[in-house]
């Protein structure tokens, strides 16, 4: 059910990016889609009643390995690494899209995509 709600958020972002006419709102729609995907990725690793996957003294056993209690209680750390990478990529895309918006406003004076349409066919 929670995954379905993530997909609903993804669809809302997609509708916003496709239907809006203001460039900044299109960029916000793409960012909503990106948050939805990151939320979906983190929820994949979730475990009810789990703990954060941070190692401290109590989770190391005598030989230096991890205790069984830690392994069975912690959430999956791999999707968290995926989400970190994805957030960085989203930041790069956002910086590029916003700088295109700023340059377009400098040249056209408007953010409306129906007014900047000069490419036909």
């Amino acid at each position, binding site marked *: 059910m929670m995954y379905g709600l993530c997909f609903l958020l993804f669809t809302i972002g997609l509708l916003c990016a496709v239907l809006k006419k203001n460039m900044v709102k299109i960029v916000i729609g793409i960012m909503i889609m990106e948050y939805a995907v990151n939320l979906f990725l983190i929820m994949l690793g979730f475990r009810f009643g789990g703990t954060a996957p941070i190692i401290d003294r109590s989770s190391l056993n005598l030989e230096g390995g991890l205790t069984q209690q830690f392994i069975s209680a912690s959430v999956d750390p791999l999707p968290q690494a995926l989400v970190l990478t994805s957030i960085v990529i989203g930041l790069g*895309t956002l910086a590029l899209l916003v700088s295109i918006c700023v340059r377009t406003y400098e040249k056209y004076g408007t953010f409306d995509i129906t007014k900047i349409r000069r490419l036909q066919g």
Partner: protein
Amino acid sequence: MTVPLPVFVAIPLTAAFILPLFGDRYRGFATFFANVAALVLLALAITTIGQSYSYQVGRWSIPLGINMVLDGLSSLLLITIAVVSASAMLFSARYMEQYSAKSKYLSLFMLMTAGMNGVVLSGDIFNLFVFLEIASIASYALVGFGCEHEQLEASFKYAVLGSIASLFILFAIGLVYGNTGTLNMAYISQAIQTRGINNGLSFALAMFIAGFGLKAALVPFHAWLPDAHPAAPAPISAMLSGVLIKALGVYAIARLLFNVFGISEMISWVLIALGVLSMVVGVFLAVGQWDFKRLLAYHSISQMGYIVLGIGLGALILARGGSVVWASIAILGGLFHLVNHAVFKSLLFLTSGSIEMSTGTRQLKQLGGLSGVMPLTRANCAVASAAIAGVPPFNGFWSKLILVIAAVGTGFYTLAAVTVIVSLVTLISFLKVHRYIFLGELPDNLRQCRENKGTMFVAMAALAVLCLAMGLLVLVPSLKAGVLDPAVQVLIDGFAYSAKLLAGSN
């Protein structure tokens, strides 16, 4: 000698971060350095012919670590990327003098090459996504490089549609991880072989085809290409149309479909439908264009349809349990057309850049009679147009012939007929291009145009020689067995990719 695979990514990345330090005063030296890097990559790529091995990054063995895999298909694409990027880099030595910030352009170009090399060498599905994003974001920035009105609009449209496609792909990767518990492509393939495809995985496959199909500009998802490719500077149009849509789109679809998920009849029909739709829509929209680069961009859509048709036909034959020989012929046609299209389409875009640099325009109605003023460009353009239209003995003829033979031999006569008709309409539109640009009256304002000699001509001539010589890749059996057959074999073998990797690591 086996080259450690990360150097294909490390060399362009290092070059990309050294080049901005040169600044504007030393841009001659920056250009030289970038060209040397591109030629080194070409030499290293050629040494990978016929080899097949995997590299564990950081000495962590899979599935804990990330590996990079080189096999026949990756080797073929590495060589294609290296050839096109070396010639585009040589061309941009003089072409990009019209723009300021040349060292930043070279840095972005190297980043795009690093991303593409990473995509074809990756053995891990999330690593493929990260390199795909590196190449895509670099290309969004390069399309809008001139910062004029139409370039900003084209770059915004391309960036929005490309980001949506990447988010579809990331969502699908999440679904695959949730259903199989691993990110390594060999282990995902093993999980699918033992447990089969459930609803989550088939939804993920549909999202993969939508996302990678948009990157490959197949027809329902092609809306960004006719705006983005003309607006980019000419060497970037050559790279985008020549290798980016193939390495990021077609390679990823082929790898996921044949080696990871396994082919089924429904997916093969989807691919064939997308291919036929792209061929027909692309060529009929191209004939009516009056802007040279926009016409070439629509032809890119049409030729991508050929490649996807070949691969889809091979998949359909395998899924129905038909003869492996005919499936190999169909996939050989598709992959050979991929390599050919990279060469002749980049040559066409480079000639359009040469014409634009000399005359200042790319509208067909404002050009004319350039055959006397620019004979070298005319010769290169004639070679490339003959290649794309499928005139023997250029390379386009051989790959289209193989596709038609595969379609006729397996009983799909309508597909063969559509292929031939689209090829004829392509010939018509390129005859129109030649009549309007090179024949006819020279307008008065173009009388003092000069020919472009020097590095630009060398880059174009190298690609033209390849157009002539690449027919030998299928005619000479030893070349075919060395270069093209390993690539076809990787796709035909399907699940043997994962079996070989898992056996090799144990």
